[in-house]
């Protein structure tokens, strides 16, 4: 058995009886045991449950009832509720929280026959771009253990990048799937807002949060998305749409927005431009254009995400679930000390920022202003998509940075400059490996119109048939 096999190959191996789902799970559990003290990609490894699920998958395959994901190991970001399995959101607040129900994403992937091996590390409450704010310590980058895997879904990206699981779930609020995918050299898709149910996905910023998938190829990500997506009566913001199918014209117009492409450091710029040229060589036209409000995305995002976070995180009160302070003097003391001890500093900064922008006298100047800027950014994209079929852009200003290197919150927020615009506009966006700078993977971002994931998958698949960047894996 070899790591880094595609889901389709693993499915064929299972169908032929080359190995059982139990053997496949055991193989990956052993890889996790060997690597994870170092990588810290997992918060919990659920070995016994995994083997039970694998046995069930083997019985299903034996009955001839297996699907494309039956028996395929995966990991869930620890933001998705798993019934009977601790779900921490990488916070002390939820360190002992065992949900009484499954997230829809978890239930659907289980119904498809996947075998969950564990829950992956992340930034606390998904607030970060490096997976360093985790209560359980930082996850590390499989290409260089001294570097961050990106965030917030850094554990999922690192686990796939290191070959510990063939695929994993993640969530993306302002770039939390795309940026770690780029940093770890894997493919990651943030679907259109509403494509995937948010039920049971611990809320951070509800008008932005969206579940998605990591894999070793566009094809694998498409397979996982196929089992996750679709309307869910338990999430009224989930959309009723036809399932995603890879589709795209033979010749598309691909926009290169000047705001994203100017000012990139030399090697990054060259690497990304070569990737865009590859799409041109495949028969697509590259078109320069402008998304003029791009620079306002990070400020507007940090207003909206902070405001929504301050409201969403008010539920952590030390009463109904989560961390509770000892011997409270009164109710306010219980709330304050439970929250003071349960939340880390970055979470507190976000709550305080959100409380500020929502408070009397600032609401219009900050919160409503940010929502107006949000519409400007959305209009930029709507106008662009009258001229182009998809947009190609960098994911991040550079490759993975060293752990601890970005220690100023504003500098960390600015890492999200190329990912927050599509988030604010609710658009599907994907990151895929497109080269290396200084031995570290670089990701190319493709952004499409709402519910046109199929177009991104078609372009990405074509790119991956012409290149082998996604087949490069770290040693060890």
């Amino acid at each position, binding site marked *: 058995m070899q790591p880094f096999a595609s889901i389709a190959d693993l499915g064929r191996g299972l169908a032929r009886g080359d190995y059982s789902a139990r053997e496949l799970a055991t193989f990956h559990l052993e890889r996790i045991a060997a690597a994870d003290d170092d990588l810290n990609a997992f918060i919990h490894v659920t070995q016994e449950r995994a083997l039970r699920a694998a046995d069930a998958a083997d019985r299903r395959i034996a009955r001839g009832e297996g699907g494309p994901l039956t028996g395929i190991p995966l990991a869930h970001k620890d933001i998705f509720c798993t019934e009977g399995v601790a779900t921490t959101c990488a916070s002390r607040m939820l360190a002992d929280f065992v949900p009484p129900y499954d997230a829809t994403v978890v239930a659907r992937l289980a119904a498809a026959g996947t075998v969950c091996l564990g829950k992956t590390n992340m930034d606390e409450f998904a607030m970060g771009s490096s997976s360093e704010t985790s209560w359980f310590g930082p996850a590390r980058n499989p290409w260089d253990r001294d570097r961050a895997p990106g965030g917030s879904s850094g554990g999922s990206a690192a686990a796939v990048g290191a070959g510990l699981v063939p695929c994993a779930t993640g969530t993306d609020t302002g770039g939390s799937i795309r940026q770690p995918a780029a940093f770890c050299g894997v493919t990651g898709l943030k679907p259109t807002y*509403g494509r995937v149910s948010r039920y049971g996905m611990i809320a951070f910023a509800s008008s932005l949060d969206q579940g998605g998938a990591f894999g070793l190829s566009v094809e694998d990500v498409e397979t996982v998305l196929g089992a996750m997506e679709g309307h869910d009566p338990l999430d009224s913001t989930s959309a009723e749409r036809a399932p995603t199918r890879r589709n795209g014209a033979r010749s598309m117009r691909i926009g290169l927005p000047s705001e994203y492409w100017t000012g990139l450091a030399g090697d990054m710029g060259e690497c990304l431009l070569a990737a865009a040229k590859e799409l041109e060589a495949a028969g697509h036209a590259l078109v320069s254009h402008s998304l003029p409000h791009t620079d306002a995305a990070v400020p507007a995002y*940090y*207003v909206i995400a902070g405001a929504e976070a301050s409201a969403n995180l008010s539920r952590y009160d030390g009463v109904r679930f989560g961390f509770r302070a000892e011997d409270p003097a009164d109710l306010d003391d219980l709330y304050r000390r439970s*929250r003071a001890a349960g939340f880390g500093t970055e979470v507190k900064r976000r*709550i*305080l920022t959100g409380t500020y922008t929502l408070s009397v006298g600032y609401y219009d100047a900050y919160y*409503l202003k940010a929502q*107006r800027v949000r519409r400007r950014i959305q209009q930029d994209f709507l106008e662009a998509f009258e001229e182009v079929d998809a947009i190609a852009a960098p994911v991040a200003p550079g490759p993975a940075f060293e752990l601890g290197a970005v220690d100023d919150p504003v500098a960390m*927020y*600015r890492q999200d400059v190329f990912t927050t615009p599509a988030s604010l506009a609710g658009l599907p966006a994907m990151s895929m490996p497109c080269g290396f700078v200084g031995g570290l993977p670089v990701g190319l971002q493709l952004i499409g119109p709402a519910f046109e994931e199929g177009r991104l998958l078609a372009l990405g698949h074509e790119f991956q048939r012409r290149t082998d960047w996604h087949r490069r894996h770290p040693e060890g």
Partner: protein
Amino acid sequence: MDRQTLDRLTRLSQLQLSPEEERLVLEDLGHIVALIDEMQAIDTEGVEPLAHPLDMDQPLRHDAVTEAVDRARFLAVAPLTRDGLYLVPKVVE
């Protein structure tokens, strides 16, 4: 951002900061406010605020009972309960 504003925000959001945290957060919030102020440069005259990224209305479902709340199961995740109730410090004398 000054100490007085931070005290008010901390109280409103039911948080507490250690003196060391307070010093750091005060400085950080100043920088964060400067960052978010960058968007003030954008002309948004006459632009409607966008609350839902795809501008969709909130759909309503049929008003019917779809699930039974299993009280014991949901209380089981609470840190402190008694007789099927959540426990909080005394709020009335």
